[in-house]
Structure formats: structure tokens, C-alpha cells
């Protein structure tokens, strides 16, 4: 019981402190070929990652034209979609990632100044 309590508290404190700077990010960007939106999205996420997640992220770009089965497996509807596999919770960022505030919100990077 006590144990659980301390766990919850720790989790809460962790949450208040914001995403620890050492958390590892696993991101997948689903795109359709070299469409303008795809390239735009890629450029956008690349910039954010380089700026905020240097050295602790993994970004995989998948062209669903070439791997349709992956689109099914990952429940992709809209394109482009950036899936944040880790850290939990799983989020899907739909769109060309042009709205940076929303992207940061989606990636739980908002609290960082």
C-alpha cells in the first residue's frame, strides 16, 4: 500500500517536473511519397527534434505507398501522420506539423522554455 502511494507520488512529481530531458523518443512519420505535405512535415519534425531532442530520438520515415501493410498495422488514415510510440502515451499527430504549438503539445515538449 505504502509502496503504491510512494509510486504515485513519484509519478506525479515526475509529471509536474515535466518530461525529463533524458527521455528517449521513438517517432515514426508516415508519408506518401514526396508530396509537398510530406516533405514539409519531415522538415518540420526534423527541426523540432534537432532543437529539442538532440541525441535522444529515433525518427523513422515510412512511405505508405511502398508499405501499405504498415499503414494498416499502424491504423493510419490521414497523411502525414507522426506517431509518437515512446514515451507513452501513444499519440498521433495528424497533418503537416505546421502548427508548432500543437506539435509540441502532442509530443509533451510544451513545458520546455
Amino acid at each position, binding site marked *: 500500500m505504502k509502496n503504491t502511494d510512494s509510486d504515485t507520488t513519484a509519478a506525479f512529481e515526475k509529471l509536474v517536473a515535466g518530461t525529463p530531458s533524458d527521455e528517449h523518443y521513438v517517432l515514426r512519420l*508516415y508519408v*506518401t511519397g514526396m*508530396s509537398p*505535405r510530406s516533405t514539409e*512535415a519531415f522538415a518540420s519534425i526534423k527541426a523540432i527534434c534537432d532543437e529539442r531532442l538532440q541525441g535522444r530520438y529515433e525518427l523513422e520515415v515510412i512511405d*505508405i*505507398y511502398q508499405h*501499405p*501493410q504498415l*499503414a*494498416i498495422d499502424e*491504423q*493510419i*488514415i*490521414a*497523411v*502525414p*501522420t*507522426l506517431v509518437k510510440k515512446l514515451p507513452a*502515451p*501513444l*499519440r*498521433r*499527430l*495528424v*497533418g*503537416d*506539423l*505546421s*502548427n508548432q504549438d*500543437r*506539435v509540441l*503539445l*502532442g509530443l509533451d515538449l510544451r513545458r520546455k522554455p
Partner: protein
Amino acid sequence: MSKDADQQTPANRGLAKVPTGIQGLDEITGGGLPCGRPTLVCGSAGCGKTLLAMEFLVRGATQFGEPGVFMSFEETTQELTQNVRSLGFDLDDLVEQKKLAMDFVRVERNEIEETGEYDLEGLFVRLNFAIDSIGAKRVVLDTIEALFGGLSNVSILRGELRRLFRWLKDKGVTAVITCESGAGTLTKHSLEEYVSDCVIVLDHRVTDQMSTRRLRIVKYRGTSHETNEYPFLIDEDGISVLPITSLGLQHTASTERISSGIPRLDAMLGGEGYYRSSTVLMSGTAGSGKSSIAAHFAAAACARGERCLYFAFEESPGQILRNMRSIGIDLEPWVKQGLLHFHASRAAIHGLEMHLATIHKLVREFKPRVVVMDPVGSLTSVGTRQDSNVMLTRLIDFLKMQGITALLTSLTSGDEALEGANMDVSTLVDTWLLLRDLELDGERNRVMYVLKSRGMAHSNQLREFLLTNQGVELQNVYLGAEGVLTGSARQTREAAEKAGSLLRHQEAEAKQRERVLKREAQEARIVVLQKEFEAEEEVAKRDIEQERSREETHRQDRDRMGISRKGDKVSKDAEPLARSHETPRGRK
């Protein structure tokens, strides 16, 4: 693909159609859904959209060799598979055989963050992948509107859906897209604006606590179609739609006659019974013997080896069997032989349309030559008078088209004018038997008469009938001062007639006996006279004999005298007997 579509219609009239395989739907659409085009199926929750779409795919895959893709936005593949297993659709097997591809599209609002412009290319890619993987010709998008719940940018969604439908057309697949119906509009998000080739609306209405599913084709571009609402059933065989108004008066009239099962009733009907494929209405008050006469008819049909379908709306099959056995009609052997099939259900459990649907279905399956509905009146009491008339017309037309002879019984309450109560139906039926109770001398007696019977010289007599151990027996007709005599009055009359004839018979017998006696007396007298005569004759003979012997003696004496006197011998031959006869007398 459009080239293929053109080739499919040799008639070159209208557009190519893809049969759905759903019973009845192909009839009202005139062949099926538009080939290579999307069809919108809309309706409220629980009215059978998913099932209709699924059956379209399964029938296509199993019956028409057209593989299909089912893209579901609401139910997972597993759930769907379980749901339709009860209908005998084995989706796993179809998937295995590459006749069906299923894809569940999960749209989870709370996982999604919209960060800018996007399109639904992901959906296109998945659909394309599924179509190409099995060479699908049919596609179902089950409640695509779920997308509106997951993605908030309506203008993007609308644009993308428009593009999707266009893409489906270009792809040449026949698509069914299901939609929730909205308030006042066909669909919640006005998707009917994009899918304009064919729109089918499903409806699940409750009127008077009776729920009926209905289907209507709102729009079918480029083809004529039925515009009415059709009830449809969902049962263990899937969906069946009833094209009930596509009826006419084209049925052929049979000249074959079939027995009513009661020989004396046949005699009343021109001597031969009902016409085959005619409709017989038997109306009467409670307890006037309708079911018994119906049972006779059913038994007679089975005895001829014909199938009989018996719809019972007030009694269970067991009860009917027992009751009919009590009047000497044993229907059980026919049930066991499969010639007689009972379908018992309360009229109140369904709406009219549902009943009609059930009847259609059963008739199609059982293929009877004879149908009994007992009583059809309880069926018509379910709906309004107008509804029930429409329904009866459809029913009668349907049965006639199938060449089925139908016997409908109808209950009239005691107060109503017997002939007026069924006025609406009366024009539809070919033969109308009226059963009623006659109250006379403190008793009720059953009588029947043929009110009308088209195309035959029928009896106009009011006939009393009895329910005996041997079934229904029509009695002889006795007319009294107040009309036909029934019950005790008839029996009295019968007894009186019997007594009268007995008396006459006795008189005749007495006379006969008298004659015999007379003759016997006469004969006795003749015998006596004969005896007397014989006696007299005897006496006479004796006299003659004596005379002769005397004469002989006399002649001998004479001869002796002659001899003694040495005279001539008197010739016996020369002298006649008569003379000799006289001689002695003269000597006397």
C-alpha cells in the same frame, strides 16, 4: 472497368447492375445495385445497414464470384465475424479463400492531434491495398461517418470523401457506403450530396408497439425502380425484402376443381368443389365451425398428396390436432409425412407487413398447393382497416400468382351484419362461404350457405350441418313455414316423415297379407269342390260298373238261353253298347 460494365448489359438500356443476392432487393431495384458505382445505404441505428452491406459482400463472394472488401469503422473484424456467424456467414473461411478482405479502421479521437493540413491518403492506400490483394469487385465502407468523430476538420473531410467516392468509381468497384440518418436529412453529414447514383433508406419504425423494418429506394439514377416502402426481414437466412406491391392481375385461371373435403359441400359448389388457385373466404360467428371445415380442406389436400401450409393465429398446432381428432379428422399422419405444415403465431406479435413477409417466406420455402389461414381476421385486426385491406389484397394476389388455393377464415362478431363485415374483402375472394348460427325454438344450429362462387353454378340453399364423430356432415334440407328447418325442428319433421312412411308401409303390408289369405281360402274351396266332384265321379263310375256287370250277366244269361234254345249266338261286336245299355233298362 466501365467497358466491362457496358458489356454486362447486352440490352444497352440503362446502366449495368450488380445483383446483390439479397432476396427481393434485386427485384425492386430491377437487377441490383449500379455496377461500378457507389450506393449509399442510410438509416438509423439498428436498422440493418451493416448486415445488408455484409450480405451484399458475402453473396457476391459466394454466389457471383466477386470478391469484396469490408472496411469497417465501427466494429472490429472479430466482432463482425461473430455477429454474422448466426446468419451462416463464415467470414474467416472467406478471408482464407481470398474472397473477402476485411480492414478495421480505428479512429480514436483522444490519440489524435491535428497539427496542420492533411489528407486521407492513408485510407486510400489501405483500401487500394485490400482491393488489389484479392481483386475485389465490391467494397463496403461501414459507417464512414465515424471519421467525422475522429477528425475535426470538416472541410478537409468533405473534400476527401468526395475524392474517395470519385476514386471508387474510377477503380470500378461497386461500393456500398453506410451512413447514419440525421434529423430531417438522409444522412448526418449530407453525404448523399456526393453519392448520387443510388440511395437506399432503411427504416425501423414502431407503430402501435409493433416494429417493422422497411426499405425504400430514394434514388437510383439512370434506371426505373420501385419507389414504395418495402418491409424486410432479418432472420437466420439474412435479409429478405418483399416486393409486395409488384403484383398484378396476370394470374392464369385454372379450370381444375379441387374438393373441399366435404362431399356434400362439393355438391353445393357446382358438384365439384372449389377452383384450383382460387381464394375462398369462410366467414362466420364464433364457434360456427370454421376451423373444422378448414381442417377438412387441409386433410383433403394432403390426401391428394398436395402440400398444405396451415397458418394458425389463434391455436397451437397441438391444440388443432387434438380438436380435429375429436371430430374424426386426424391430421397428424400428414404432419409426419411432411405434407402438412403448421405455422402458429399470435397475430399481435408482428405488424402486418411482418406477417406478410413471414407468409411470403414460408410459401417460398414450403411450396404448398394449398394454404389455410385461420383466422385471417385476427391478422387484419392488427392494423387499420385500410392497411389490412391493402395487405389482404397483396396476400391474395401473391397466393394466386403462385397458383395456390387459399382458404381464409374470418370471424364476424354476432352483432355485425354478416355480409357487411367483410365487404372490403368480398370483392377479392372467388368463393365465399358464410357460416352462421340460426336461433330457432330455443336452440342454435349451424348453417352454411354459398354467398358467392365465381364461375360455377352453386347452390343457393341454406344448409344445416353437424359436427359429428366423422367430421362435418351436411343435413338434408327441410323447409318449414319460417324457412329452412334446423335442429330439433328438422328432427321433428324428419321423425314425422318417418312415421308417415311407416304407416303407409304397414297399410300396404296388411293389404298384401289379406290378399294372400283370400287366395289361400279360394284355393281351399277349389280343393273341396274338386274332392266333391271326385266323390261324385266315383259314385258314377261305380254305377256304370255295376250296370256293365249287370248287362254282362244279362247277356250271358241270354247267350245261355240261346244255347239252351239252340239259337244264334248274339254278336257282341254287331250290337252297339248303347243298345245293350238300354236294353237292361228297358227290361227293368
